[in-house]
């Protein structure tokens, strides 16, 4: 028996069916949805090659019975109720009640670098999106060859291709802001696959709530085929739950601190912004995130800044992205190290930018260090099976590096900017390769 877990979607407004052809999987993880809204996961262990609808229904009833009722009621409340309450039979027949007013124009931006295979899967899902005013944009970040350009230009005529020669994910994200024609910019990664209703869910929130400036969504695993992918989900994954949450600082007392732990809001693989917010609070910090010394944190820093500047951020689980986690254990360890570097680089950057927040950030950084790194390291001695210790250590090393990387990355970014101004970043590959931050002075 392998440890692989089959990942499927179950839509409750349609009849449940047996799930077949599950040879080689040890269990089934179903994302339970009602009219597209995710309600939760159920895990059903498998025997043989199928999972019967009855087994699935029992699991849903045991794990999420009340959540199903709540979500059905949520849709039901769109219409007036009878005086004596809702009948259970009527409740399950409830039609979808999602936002159906006018929708804003949306640009979907995918920033990529030398991962043409992944990008193809991502673009195939984006061209399936059903949305009236949609611009699809691929930002090719300092590529070493023109495979991505060739792919986009030859196979996806409706996708707008731009090349951003300055290496670093946040340069690419900023390029997307200048290239975008939509009022809303939705970002995803090249190793992600968008759910058909992704953009509609995002746009609905922005349309209905003019005060919302940023939005994050639910990230579910695209597959759980390898041990590393399962470990990543167990390690915390990218999912941030199934409840729509609203975040905004209390403008009166200025004492709110919850937004320092910006990882709770989501991740850069599934985030969207009202484009005008960047005019007010500035664009992404090019010293942060993949492709620079800091290797991450650009998304977290932006979540923090949006809230710190007094805007509203919404976590909307109906906006679903499937992320293909790293398949090998080594890649996973590297990713966790990078996560540690990115997180503490973001702390350093925010503490430098907002002096008033310095103390709270230090306090939070210490608490997180104890809660997430040290406490779990201690647990791993008592219960080694729960999480491999070397992964916890990998992240611990990452954060130690993260404390010192940001200033260097900042200088590297200034140099890149200066070189770009001199016109040194134009060609394919070579120049960008020479200027990768690791070799930068």
């Amino acid at each position: 028996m392998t440890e692989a877990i089959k990942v499927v979607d179950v839509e409750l407004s349609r009849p449940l069916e047996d799930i077949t052809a599950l040879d080689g999987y040890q269990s089934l993880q179903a994302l339970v949805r009602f009219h597209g809204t995710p309600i939760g996961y159920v895990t059903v262990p498998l025997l043989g090659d199928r999972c019967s609808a009855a087994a699935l229904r029992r699991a849903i009833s045991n794990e999420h019975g009340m959540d199903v009722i709540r979500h059905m009621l949520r849709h039901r409340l769109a219409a007036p109720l009878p005086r004596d309450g809702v009948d259970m039979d009527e409740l399950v027949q409830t039609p979808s009640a999602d936002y159906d007013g006018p929708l804003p124009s949306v640009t979907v931006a995918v920033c990529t670098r030398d991962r043409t295979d992944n990008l193809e899967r991502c673009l195939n899902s984006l061209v399936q999106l059903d949305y009236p005013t949609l611009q699809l944009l691929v930002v090719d970040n300092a590529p070493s060859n023109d495979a991505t350009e060739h792919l986009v230009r030859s196979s996806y005529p409706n996708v707008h291709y731009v090349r951003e020669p300055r290496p670093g994910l946040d340069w690419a994200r900023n390029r997307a802001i200048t290239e975008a024609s939509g009022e809303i910019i939705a970002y995803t990664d090249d190793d992600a696959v968008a759910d058909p209703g992704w953009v509609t869910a995002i746009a609905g929130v922005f349309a209905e709530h003019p005060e919302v400036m940023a939005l994050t969504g639910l990230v579910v695993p695209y597959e759980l085929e390898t041990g590393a992918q399962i470990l990543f989900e167990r390690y915390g994954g990218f999912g941030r739950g199934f409840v729509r949450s609203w975040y905004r600082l209390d403008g009166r007392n200025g004492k709110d601190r919850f937004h320092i732990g910006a990882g709770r809001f989501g991740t850069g693989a599934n985030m969207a912004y009202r484009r005008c917010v960047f005019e007010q609070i500035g664009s992404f910090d090019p010293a942060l995130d993949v492709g620079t010394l800091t290797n991450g944190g650009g998304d977290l820093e932006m979540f923090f800044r949006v809230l710190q500047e007094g805007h509203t951020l919404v976590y909307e689980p109906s906006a679903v992205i499937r992320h293909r986690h790293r398949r090998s254990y080594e890649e996973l360890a590297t990713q966790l190290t990078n996560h540690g570097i990115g997180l503490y680089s973001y702390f350093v950057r925010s503490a430098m930018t907002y002096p008033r927040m310095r103390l709270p950030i230090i306090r939070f950084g210490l608490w997180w260090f104890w809660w997430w790194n040290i406490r779990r390291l201690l647990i791993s001695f008592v219960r080694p099976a729960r999480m491999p210790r070397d992964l916890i250590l990998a992240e611990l090393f990452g954060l130690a590096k993260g404390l010192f990387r940001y200033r260097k990355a900042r200088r590297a970014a200034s140099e890149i900017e200066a070189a770009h101004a001199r016109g040194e970043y134009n060609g394919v590959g070579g120049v960008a390769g020479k200027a990768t931050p690791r070799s930068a002075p």
Partner: protein
Amino acid sequence: MIRLLQCEYPTAIRIVDLCKPLNALSDVRDYNTVRVFVSLADRLLGSVDIANNGQPVSVSRMRDAIAFGLPGELLRGIESLSLNGQIQTSLASAVTKHMKTGNESPVILAADIPVSVVVATRDRPDDLRNCLQCLSLQVSPRRVEIVVVDNNPDSGLTPRVVAGFPDVILVNEPRQGLAYARNRGFGVASGDIAITTDDDVTMPPDWLEKLIVPFANSNVAAVTGNTLPLALDTVSQQLFEVYGGLGRGFKSMEANTHWFRSSRRHAVPTWTLGATANAAFRTEVFSHPQIGLMDEALGPGMPSGVGEDTYLFYKIIKAGYELIYVPDAYVWHKHRPDMPALRHQIYNYSKGHVAYHLTTLLRDHDLRALTRLIISLPRSQLGRIKQRLLGRSVYPISLIMLEILGTMVGSWALWRSRRRVRREGRSEPWVPLAKRPLPNVANGPRHAVEK
């Protein structure tokens, strides 16, 4: 202090009638929180708080808050969900009952699924003959294979009985211990489902089919049935029923991971689920990496006494599968008629209970075993002594003292059992039928002769 803080956060009060279309609350910019009182026409249901932080509250946000805050109040015929967990559970199953089902497979067990019955025996020829007669009278549309495991081949008592039943497969397991014997039987059994029973039970003709019905659900890996006393002629037989007997009640039960994780402090009561005197397993689980066969160090025939069945149930449910208790599938068990045998049995049960909990602690790092062993088990024993002293119970104190003695030597018994298993070797791992070297009908007895 809390009151002062609340003054700092002004809260708006609004009332919303759900019988009318909802409207956004746009006039709440001066407030951090809106408390929405919800009514159905003139009936007030309750309130929900929305942290709006000076922003208008949209209709969809209000729907979220009301649906998540007051789900029970909105449903017809339910007073308040928050008061009663039982109502929540029944509501939850009601909603799933309404879930539409498409091409669902019918909930009956296909007639072509073969079943094996594994009977372990040790020098009880008369009991075994009665048991095999009952088994041969079972009414079933499917192929039923009967495997008898002789746990004391040297005596030569069992083959003479089995010779009278030409279709019964006989295998030998010279290593003493019920877990060894059952594992040996599972290794020979060719059915997709293996039923375990003892040589001292009598079963009605419809027992087998009733027992295996729940396997139609693919997630069910084990089923147990009820065990009733065949006779209550003697004092010892009656006392055994007072002790708890082997029956597990007349209401069906389901045990799943939900149940397994239901308490963080108290050990999960797998011993209330039944016993392998009347149980059935999907044989596939024996090759599951987290389950495997029965733990040889537990069970009758070992110093530890009992627990091999309970621990197998534990592993099955822990791995995420379901166990169903079917009270209708009952067997009649012949309780030991004399006092020494009863004392021996109760002593063994007490040792085995401790051995089982220590096994979950050592193998699965289940710390809940500690609270059971240190707190709740002594408390229950002392409680029963008190009941007896107050005259509310007829169960003699001498037997309770015997239980306490068994509890105290339980860990030593487990240690001795484990040493014996190390000396005599583990059971061979279970191999699916397709991967076994020879057709097992020929292989089984011959293999035994070689030994």
